[in-house]
C-alpha cells in the first residue's frame, strides 16, 4: 500500500476530459428545469439511484461512473444514500409491479425541487419486458420523468452527457442575483 500511495503522488490522473452536453438531452430538458435551480443547487447535484427492477446492467454502468476514468464527483455530482439528501432521482428498470410502491415512496421522500432521470431502454417504456404481467412499463408511468438517457445499458459517457446537460440547463436558467 505504501508504494501504491507513493506512486499515486506522481502519476498523472487517469481521469478523461469531460464530454460535451448532449443536444437531444438538452432539448428534452428545456421545459423541465426551473429558474430557481442555479440559486438552489449551485453547481452541485446529489443523486439517489433506485433500481426499480432492472437486470442490473444499468447499475454496473452507474457504478462505473465513479471509477477514476469518469470520476463523476469532479463535476459536483455525487450519489447519496438517502432520497432525503437528493436533488435527482435516477431510476432504472422497467418498473416491476412489485417495485412500484417503493419507487413512489422514494420519489415522495425527495425534497423539492427535484428531477427524475430515467436510465436505460427499459426505463423508457419497459424495453424488451414491456407487456409482461409483472411489469408496469416505463418510469414515467409511475413518477414524472425529466430526462431519459437511452441505451442497454447506456455507457458511462452517455450518462455523463445527460447529467452535464442537466447541470448546464440549471445554470442557463438561473438569473444572477
Amino acid at each position, binding site marked *: 500500500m505504501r508504494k501504491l500511495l507513493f506512486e499515486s503522488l506522481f502519476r498523472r490522473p487517469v481521469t478523461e476530459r469531460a464530454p460535451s452536453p448532449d443536444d437531444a438531452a438538452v432539448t428534452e430538458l428545456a421545459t423541465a428545469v426551473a429558474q430557481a435551480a442555479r440559486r438552489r443547487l449551485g453547481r452541485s447535484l446529489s443523486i439517489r439511484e433506485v433500481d426499480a427492477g432492472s437486470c442490473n446492467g444499468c447499475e454496473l454502468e452507474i457504478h462505473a461512473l465513479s*471509477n*477514476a476514468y469518469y470520476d463523476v464527483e469532479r463535476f459536483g455530482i455525487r450519489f447519496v444514500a438517502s432520497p432525503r439528501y437528493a436533488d435527482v432521482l435516477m431510476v432504472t428498470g422497467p418498473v416491476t409491479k412489485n417495485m412500484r410502491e417503493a419507487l413512489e415512496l422514494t420519489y415522495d421522500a425527495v425534497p423539492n425541487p427535484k428531477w427524475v432521470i430515467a436510465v436505460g431502454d427499459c426505463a423508457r417504456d419497459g424495453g424488451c419486458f414491456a407487456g409482461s404481467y409483472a411489469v408496469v412499463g416505463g418510469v414515467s408511468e409511475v413518477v414524472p420523468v425529466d430526462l431519459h438517457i437511452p441505451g442497454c445499458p447506456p455507457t458511462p459517457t452517455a450518462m455523463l452527457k445527460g447529467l452535464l446537460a442537466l447541470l448546464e440547463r440549471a445554470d442557463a436558467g438561473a438569473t444572477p442575483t
Partner: protein
Amino acid sequence: MPSLIDLMLEGQLVQRHSPWPRAVVDASVWNFAASELARGRWSLLGLWGEPSTVHMAIMDEQTSEIAVVSLDCFDRAYPSVSQHHPPALRLERAVHDLFGLVAEGSSDTRSWLDHNRWGVRFPLGDRIDALPQASPYFFLPAEGDGLHQIAVGPVHAGTIEPGHFRFTTSGETVVRLEPRLGYAHKGIERLMMDASLVRAAQLAGRVSGDSTVAYALAFSRAVEAALEVMVPDRAVWLRALLAELERLAHHLGDIGGICNDASFALMHAHCSVLREDVLRASNAAFGHRLMRDIILPGGVTRDLDKDGTEAIQAALDNIRLRFPALIELYDNTASLQDRTVDAGVLKPALAAQYAAGGYTGRASGRSFDARRALAYPPYESLRFDVPILAEGDVNARVWIRIREVEQTLYLIDQILTRLPEGPLSIQAGVYCEPREGMAIVEGFRGDVMVWLRVRDGKIERCHLRDPSWFQWPLVEAAIEGNIVADFPLCNRSFNCAYSGHDL
C-alpha cells in the same frame, strides 16, 4: 444402490431430450429421488414447473451424471421435495406462485415471487384473479429476551438491486436474517413462451445484466442441444473468450467492492480501473462493454479482428503488471484482513447440501466448476486449475476470486493463441415436433442452468435457473453471529443476483 440411470429406467424416458435424459416418473420414484438428495448422495440442480407438471434436475457429483425427473401433478399437487431436502423450498414456493401447483407436505407455504401486485395469480398456469387484498408477509419468528428487528430495503443506501432484508438482532449481533425477494420479478419465463429464438435469446441475455454472456451462452447451448446444432469451432472459442472476459471484469469489480465494504477504498479505486480496462477492451473487440447480444443460438454475431485482439491483450498485460501489487496489498494490510478473516463463515457441509456454485462453493470446499465437471467445449481442451479453499469466510471468497482472475488470464491467453478460423454461425433447423434441450455453463458467480422446449422454431417453455437460488439461503446462514455492520461486507462477498433470482 441405484444410480441416476437406474432411476431413469424406473420412469418413462422422454424422446428428444438432450444431452441428458429426462423421464416421467411416478410419485414413489419422485420421493425416492428426494430422499437420496436428502442423504447427500445427489445434488439438486433445479426444480421448475409447467401448468400440470413439475420437473427436477439432479446431478451425481461423483460421476457428473445429470438427469431430469418429471412428475404429472394430478389435482395440481405433488409431494414436496423440500420436506426432505430444504434447498428445494424456495423453488417450490416459486413454482406455486407461477403455476399454482402445491407442494404437499412443505413446511412453508408463503408466497415468494408473488407480492399480490400482478393483478393475477398463477400467471403461467391457469390464471385466476388476484386476491382482493394483499395479505401481510409474515417473517419467520425469532424469540428471546432483548431481540429486536431491523428492516432494510427494498431500496438500499447504495446503488444495488432491490430486495428486503429482515434482521433479528441481539444488540449488534445478528441472530436471524431473512430476505424477501421477488422485487425484480419481470415475468421473463412468460415472455419467453411463444417467442422466436432471437427474441428469447435477447431476453435470456437480460435475466441478469452482470451474467449476460453466461445466460446467452446457456440459453444458446440448450437450444443447440434440442435442435442438434453443431456450432462452428470459431464461435465455440469466441464464446469462451466472451465468458472469460465477463468473469474477469466482475471478479475484479468484486475484489475491489468487498474491500470497499471493509472501508478500504484504495483497493476499490485500483480494481475499478482494471475492471474498466476490461470493459473497454470488450467494447473494442465486440462492440459492447458488457458483450450483450453477441451470442445467439447457432453461433456468435461478431467476429474478433486484429484490433480487438490487441485491445484485449493490452488490457491483460496491464492487469498482469498491476494486479500482483494489489494482491500483495490485500494480503499485507492487517486492518483489512481483520475484517475479512473469519467473517461470514459458510460451513462446507452446508455448501455441499445446497450444491453451492461458483466462488461461494469453492471457498467452502466444494470443487464443482461446470467448465471442469461438465467439460463443455472448448474447456475440455484448455488447461486451467479450479482453486478450492475450505475456510468459507469472506477472505476465502476473495482469494478464490483472486486465483480465478489468474486462471482466467491464462485461459484467455490460450484462447487467443489457439482461436481457430472459420464461420461464425450456423442456421438452426426448424422442427414441428417438440424438442427439449438443457445446458449448464459456468457464469462468474456459479452454474447457470437452462432447460427449454422448442417447437416450430419457437420457445414453448424455457426455465432459467440462476446460481443465486442456492446461494441466498447460505448468506442467511453465514451472517448468523456476525454484527449488522458486517452484513454489507459478507453479502458482497457472496454477491448473489437479485434480478437473476427474481427473473
